[in-house]
């Protein structure tokens, strides 16, 4: 009897082990190459950001259906995705990256150098507008080897976003936003005094502190790196002036609030919640403020950044490149570029495509008319703006300062070498100034200069 029971248990254990082996085998097995069944090519594409509303998802899915109708050999599956260095490498290692996704200008060259995104020169060159890109924009999508690693699809200039309601509460005119940094400081002080909210806030965490310190430096006529990316110029008078201004606003005026740990997402959240008077971010951030943070459109205002008198003063320009996974097959790469042409690029070039796109977006109440900058030449950009004009649903008159002023400003690209690492070094500098009243700005910059140069020499 005992033996019998034992045999039963052994059998049970054997079954359990076999079952666990097969489960493990299934879990560890490759996902198989099912991308080319029935002669069709299947690709996954960046569709919407985590937290986006249903309307955004519906609009992308609808456009994907249209694309598949026009390209019956391609199956497109839009998925939730947002660029983050943290998830990128994990997804790359685990084979779960979408076939195509957008990468910031700052990261394109590094990813290309490490062969983590695909060289798509041959497919981009087949597009009708391949020769017509604004050369400085196309340069952002070009690797150091001269090959093209994606389509530059959106270009922004940094602007000053402000809360019109807080301006009114503080007795300021929301239709005349500040035009000098001194005025920014005065207005911030007035807002903090009258409303108890932070008058001006600057991002400081997760490399955005460096990004925004670079922007501030540019507006004051400084640079953080030589144009060829070989020499660090972090310790310069403009950066010191910018940091001193932040220090004084934080510690003398107390107009920046007590919480200073903000990055792109959290500052948008705080702004949409009415806790921030003014902040700097890309000119296209209004889209995210609407689809992710449900900002009150009446409260929103966008102005150009104040520039100093220096002839070198300018505004930081950036953008995204629609890149393709290095692990995609040739057919998938070709299909991905076609999709990016249809979904992201053609509407920047062809007024008819722009109008069709705007129509779909309008049906799902998505923001149309947020300020962007030309990817091709200015007449092309203007043609597109005219085509979508009937569908515009964002408060463009509240963005007039930016819309009218941006083309008079000198657009300066981000530092070209080791950009994000440089930003990480600068994050610490900005955080120190915002959290320590006695921070020694000169010493901080001298130290950061050493680190940044060591980075470029490595």
């Amino acid at each position, binding site marked *: 009897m005992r033996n019998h029971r*034992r045999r039963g248990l052994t059998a049970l254990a054997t079954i359990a082990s076999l079952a666990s082996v097969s489960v493990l085998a299934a879990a560890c097995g490759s996902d198989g190459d099912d991308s080319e069944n029935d002669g069709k090519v299947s690709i996954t594409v960046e569709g919407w950001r985590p937290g986006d509303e249903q309307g955004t998802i519906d609009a992308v899915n609808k456009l994907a259906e249209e694309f598949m109708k026009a390209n019956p050999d391609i199956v497109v599956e839009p998925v939730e995705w947002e660029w983050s260095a943290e998830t990128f490498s994990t997804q790359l290692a685990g084979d779960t990256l979408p076939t195509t996704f957008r990468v910031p200008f700052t990261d394109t060259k590094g990813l290309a150098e490490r062969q983590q995104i695909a060289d798509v020169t041959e497919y981009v060159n087949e597009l009708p507008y391949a020769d017509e890109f604004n050369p400085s924009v196309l340069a952002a999508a070009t690797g150091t080897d001269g090959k093209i690693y994606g389509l530059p699809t959106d270009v922004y200039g940094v602007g000053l976003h402000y809360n019109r309601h807080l301006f009114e509460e503080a007795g300021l005119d929301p239709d005349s936003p500040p035009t000098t940094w001194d005025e920014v400081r005065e207005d911030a002080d007035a807002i903090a005094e009258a409303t108890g909210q932070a008058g001006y806030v600057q991002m400081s965490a997760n490399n955005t502190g460096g990004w925004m310190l670079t922007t501030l430096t540019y507006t004051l006529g400084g640079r953080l790196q030589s144009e060829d990316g070989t020499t660090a110029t972090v310790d310069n008078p403009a950066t010191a002036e910018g940091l001193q201004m932040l220090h004084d606003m934080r510690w003398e005026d107390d107009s920046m609030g007590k919480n200073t740990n903000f990055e792109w997402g959290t500052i948008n959240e705080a702004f949409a919640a009415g806790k921030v008077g003014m902040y700097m971010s890309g000119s296209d951030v209004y889209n995210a403020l609407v689809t992710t943070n449900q900002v009150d459109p009446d409260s929103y205002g966008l102005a150009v950044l104040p520039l100093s008198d220096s002839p070198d003063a300018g505004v930081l320009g950036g953008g995204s490149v629609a890149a393709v996974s290095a692990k995609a097959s040739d057919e998938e790469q070709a299909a991905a570029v076609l999709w990016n042409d249809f979904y992201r690029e053609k509407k920047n070039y062809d007024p008819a495509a722009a109008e069709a796109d705007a129509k779909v977006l309008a049906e799902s109440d998505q923001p149309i008319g947020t300020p962007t900058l030309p990817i091709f030449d200015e007449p092309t950009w203007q043609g597109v703006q005219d085509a979508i004009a009937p569908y515009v649903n964002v408060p463009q008159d509240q963005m007039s300062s930016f819309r009218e002023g941006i083309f008079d400003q000198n657009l300066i690209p981000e530092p070209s070498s080791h950009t994000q690492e440089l930003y990480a070094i600068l994050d610490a500098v900005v955080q120190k100034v915002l959290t320590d009243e006695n921070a020694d700005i000169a010493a901080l910059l001298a130290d950061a200069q050493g680190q940044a140069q060591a980075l470029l020499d490595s």
Partner: protein
Amino acid sequence: MSSLLTRARGSASTLVFLLPMLLVFGLFSWWPIVRSVIMSVQQTNLVTDPEFVGLDNFRAVLEDPLLSTAVQNTLWFALLALVFGYPVPLILAVIMSDVRRARGLYSLLAYLPVVIPPAVAVLLWRFFYDAEPTGVFNSILGKVGLGPVPWLEDPAWAMPSLVIEATWAAAGGTVIIYLAALVSVPPEQYDAAEVDGAGVLGKVWHVTLPHLRGIMLITLILQIIGTAQVFLEPYLFTDGGPNNSTLTVLLLVYRYAFQNTTGGDYGKATALSLMLALTLALLSLVYFRLTRRWSE
């Protein structure tokens, strides 16, 4: 002969019983460890074949100026956690074991923070730690004329703030362990101590603590190993800031692996992980050698 056969059959069935666990452990615990040892001497872009680079990754980590910051911060966290976090559960357990009524309720209250998902707890505390005078903790302190405290917004305050939350979150588990051990203390010994004229503190010192010694030594090393690997709090509260004042060793590992813009430097990340693991293994070994006499 037949007993040999029975024994052989017995060990075969033992092996079969063990197999699922061995497989799961092997695949999800041991294989990653082996992989990380291999990766620590490689450089990979995760697309093409990795390249062996010898000890370059270890050298690069040791030359990183942030490493000493991270080590110092980790030691600071461990020390603070030891000073605040280690005695708290012990005191709570001793008090609770003396409570006659509603002991279950107190155990529940002490254990509740352990049940809350750690990420949720941190997000909740981030809200409590709002540096404005209107923040939750600051308004409470304001009522008694203290503060406002810059909690996470000041390089000097940030680490203690992290330790307070970590202590709150972890104390419950240790309290339960101590409580279980306290039940085994024979009540006669307390009576005897009382007859000998011992007060409450005397009873704790002469009866309770000697009984808990073995457990206390284990929880101490577990706490040291745990705090040396602190990651969640600095990552979610401050991301290592302000000005790297809460950058810990594990957060530096994470930065190498995932926040590196060039798509992940797994070589450096695994190299530093291995160094940390070896240090902790050595530390535990020395610790057990040194304390062997006390724990008997």
